[in-house]
């Protein structure tokens, strides 16, 4: 039995924050879960996938976040308790349904889990999605620790049903990936079917309907505001004159700072767990009782400015500050030492920070950047494309493991802004320059948002080459399925959608399906695609070796070794391919046999044929 299905109220477990959210959903009787995976949210749907194998919970990896949101919206409107999870930039993709779903609302509780990524541990930006609550008018909850991640999820379902509105549960990487003590509650039975009752004057958002719905949303907002003002998730502790307002993981840092500085009797802390609508009356009362306010919030000064607005309206003239106090900035995540220093500085409390060891005399250490794995087929595809396109071609790229093609010696990533941007930006680059353009996109990202760009390229007669790197899985986020995978090999029952058939159906005339470990043939195909006067697509098919191993599909191949008698030290292998299985022993290139998977790409490019299979 899955550990999150234990019917053990009162028992304590050490759970990952993301596991705690999944458990909370189960305790709330969630019946329907959708997502598109993305760090730091990916472990939530991973739980649902496994739980759905042994229960009647419905779960799907949707094709992208917009689709996930709309699938969930349908189920919630029909009356089921529904959860949808995504990373912060995923909510951009889902922003269109989000904004009008707020108008029509839901019947069954619907929780939108949004995982922000301050410090950009694995994202292209660090946007602050608290703005989405303000933009959409939807309530937002912000938990602080693993127990709250479970408890707030349950509360979010109840709140959602009460208001008939989706509720956003906002986390940050730091709390998604903590492990802490969680006390289990009782599991609620799931309602997995309901009957949809038609009501076009609520659910069909033509202008005449939506004018009325917008009014209703504002009325619901007032209700939510009243609940926020009395919510136990918004609390004031302490009675001192030094006010601190905080939320999310910053609350943890504030609690430690106050204790470490021994100022418990001097401070009052307002913690915003039900952070939108901003509990105005509570904030007003708080600001009237303190002498000054320090706001401790990561990323944008949102609470800080909201408090200023409330203070202005209420004629409160105390000092309110957050950004700019000691190290508190709009950049990156906070840490305990930074917050302790800021509290000490703002309230003029003497404090000596621990002194980190002095490393100024330590010589620079060799870097350890992440790297494509040994035997990664992307490396082989990049090599072949470079042989055909040379160094001056433009390479728009996309989001996945293959973004590591940015690093030398591959150095074939020139432009990246978001999922799917490789295809559409290539349309622009190819029109605006006379340079050759070869764009890269992975299989999962192609399904996510590459197809519309491809149709655009066909229709508008753009001329470039799109390389679809099909490694049979969503490798970057942990080998989740996508519509192109062999679901049966993963023990799933999804129907496989053929990439080549889609490409053909989009109207592409020049299509090359290659096996990248066949180097000469792949180069030949790349040259033909390069010379084609129009839009060409190369589909490079080879399993991610780690995924192949996991599903028992990796073919046994002998590792390779360098024959010293034949090797003339050209080093094309290490200089052009740079597989992590290679290393220099003095001046001699060698291959680590425990890392080499026998893909033979280096052997095929060696000008002396000096790389040969290891003899048994």
């Amino acid at each position, binding site marked *: 039995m899955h550990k999150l299905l234990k019917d053990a109220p009162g028992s304590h477990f050490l759970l990952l924050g993301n596991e705690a959210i999944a458990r909370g959903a189960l305790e709330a009787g969630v019946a329907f879960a959708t997502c598109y995976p993305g760090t730091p949210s990916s472990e939530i749907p991973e739980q649902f996938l496994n739980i759905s194998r042994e229960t009647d919970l419905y779960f799907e990896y949707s094709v992208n976040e917009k689709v996930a949101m709309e699938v969930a919206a349908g189920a919630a409107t029909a009356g089921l308790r529904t959860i949808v999870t995504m990373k912060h930039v995923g909510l951009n993709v889902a922003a269109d349904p989000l904004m009008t779903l707020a108008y029509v609302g839901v019947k069954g509780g619907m929780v939108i889990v949004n995982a922000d990524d301050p410090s950009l541990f694995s994202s292209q930006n660090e946007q602050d999605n608290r703005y989405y609550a303000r933009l959409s008018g939807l309530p937002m909850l912000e938990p602080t620790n693993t127990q709250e991640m479970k408890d707030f999820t349950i509360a979010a379902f109840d709140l959602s049903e009460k208001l008939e509105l989706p509720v956003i549960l906002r986390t940050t990487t730091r709390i998604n990936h903590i492990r802490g*003590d969680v006390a289990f509650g009782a599991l609620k039975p799931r309602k997995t079917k309901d009957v949809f009752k038609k009501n076009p004057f609520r659910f069909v958002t033509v202008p005449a309907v939506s004018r009325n719905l917008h009014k209703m949303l504002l009325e619901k907002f007032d209700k939510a505001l009243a609940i926020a003002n009395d919510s136990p998730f918004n609390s004031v502790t302490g009675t001192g004159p030094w006010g601190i307002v905080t939320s999310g993981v910053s609350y943890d840092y504030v609690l430690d700072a106050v204790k470490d500085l021994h100022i418990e009797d001097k401070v009052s802390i307002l913690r915003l767990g039900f952070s939108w609508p901003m509990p105005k009356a509570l904030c007003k009362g708080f600001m009237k009782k303190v002498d000054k306010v320090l706001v401790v919030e990561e990323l944008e000064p949102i609470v800080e400015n909201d408090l200023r607005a409330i203070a202005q309206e209420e004629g409160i003239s105390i000092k309110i500050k957050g950004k700019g106090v000691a190290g508190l900035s709009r950049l990156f995540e906070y840490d305990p030492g930074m917050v302790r220093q800021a509290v000490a500085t703002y309230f003029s409390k003497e404090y000596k920070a621990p002194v980190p060891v002095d*490393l100024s005399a330590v010589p620079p250490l060799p870097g350890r950047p*992440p790297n494509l794995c040994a035997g990664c087929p992307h490396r082989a595809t990049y090599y072949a494309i470079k042989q055909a396109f040379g160094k001056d071609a433009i390479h728009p790229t996309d989001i996945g493991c293959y973004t*590591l093609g940015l690093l030398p010696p591959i150095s074939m990533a020139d432009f990246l802004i978001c999922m799917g941007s490789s295809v559409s930006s290539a349309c622009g680059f190819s029109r605006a320059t006379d340079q050759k353009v070869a764009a890269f996109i992975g299989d999962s990202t192609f399904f996510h948002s590459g197809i519309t760009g491809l149709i655009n390229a066909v229709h508008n007669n753009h001329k470039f080459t799109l390389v679809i790197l099909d490694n049979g899985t969503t490798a970057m986020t942990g080998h989740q399925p996508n519509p192109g995978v062999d679901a049966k090999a993963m023990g799933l029952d999804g129907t496989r959608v053929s990439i080549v058939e889609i490409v053909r159906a989009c109207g592409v005339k020049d299509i090359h399906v290659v096996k990248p470990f066949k180097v000469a043939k792949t180069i030949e195909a790349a040259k033909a695609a390069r010379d084609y006067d129009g839009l060409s697509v190369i589909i490079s098919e080879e399993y991610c070796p780690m995924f192949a191993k996991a599903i028992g599909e990796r073919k046994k191949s002998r590792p390779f070794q360098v024959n010293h008698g034949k090797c003339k030290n050209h080093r094309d292998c290490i200089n052009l391919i740079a597989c*992590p299985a290679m290393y220099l022993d003095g001046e001699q290139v060698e291959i680590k046999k425990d890392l080499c998977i026998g893909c033979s790409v280096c052997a095929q490019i060696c000008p002396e044929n000096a790389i040969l299979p290891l003899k048994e």
Partner: protein
Amino acid sequence: METKRIVFVGVGGQGNLLTSRLLGEAALSAGIPTVVSEIHGMAQRGGIVESAVLLGDVTSPIVSNGEADVLVGFEPVETLRALMRCNGNSVVIANTRPLPPFTVSIGQGKYPPIDETLNMIRKRVKRLIAIDGNGLAEEAGNPLSLNMVMLGALIGSGTIPVMAEQMKAVISSSTKKAFLDSNLKAFDLGMEKAR
């Protein structure tokens, strides 16, 4: 209850995330308030992996620079790189076996000599416990049990309030049978070395 801040650093594949999770489990079973933090993401692709375990009277899930009580380093250069987490009073437990990064393998950087690396650590902190973790793991009969050696060394160092028996109980309940004996042996070898 006294607060202890422990930072683990290693390279993807060395198993330090499992180590911090098991320590968290053991602390929880011992009734010690615990929070563990991990950074996921690029770990599978040969990058640096850092995790932290905070025990006792503390709420924050991470350790600021200069605030680690103990740094457990699975790889010498990564231990030195993470040393800014430490102060003059910290204890460092370091595996001495290098795992040169790929940049070094292909001649784009130099891996500093191990003795110099360890000396740079030793003279900056209160105590350095340097052990050949991989050697002990091999001695235990399972080269992949480096993380158990390091966990044993952490317990053996006497720097944290988790007992060996509590730790072993958690290892026993979360290890596959085939690896249990070698894992426990690796734990014991690490513990003896660090005493």
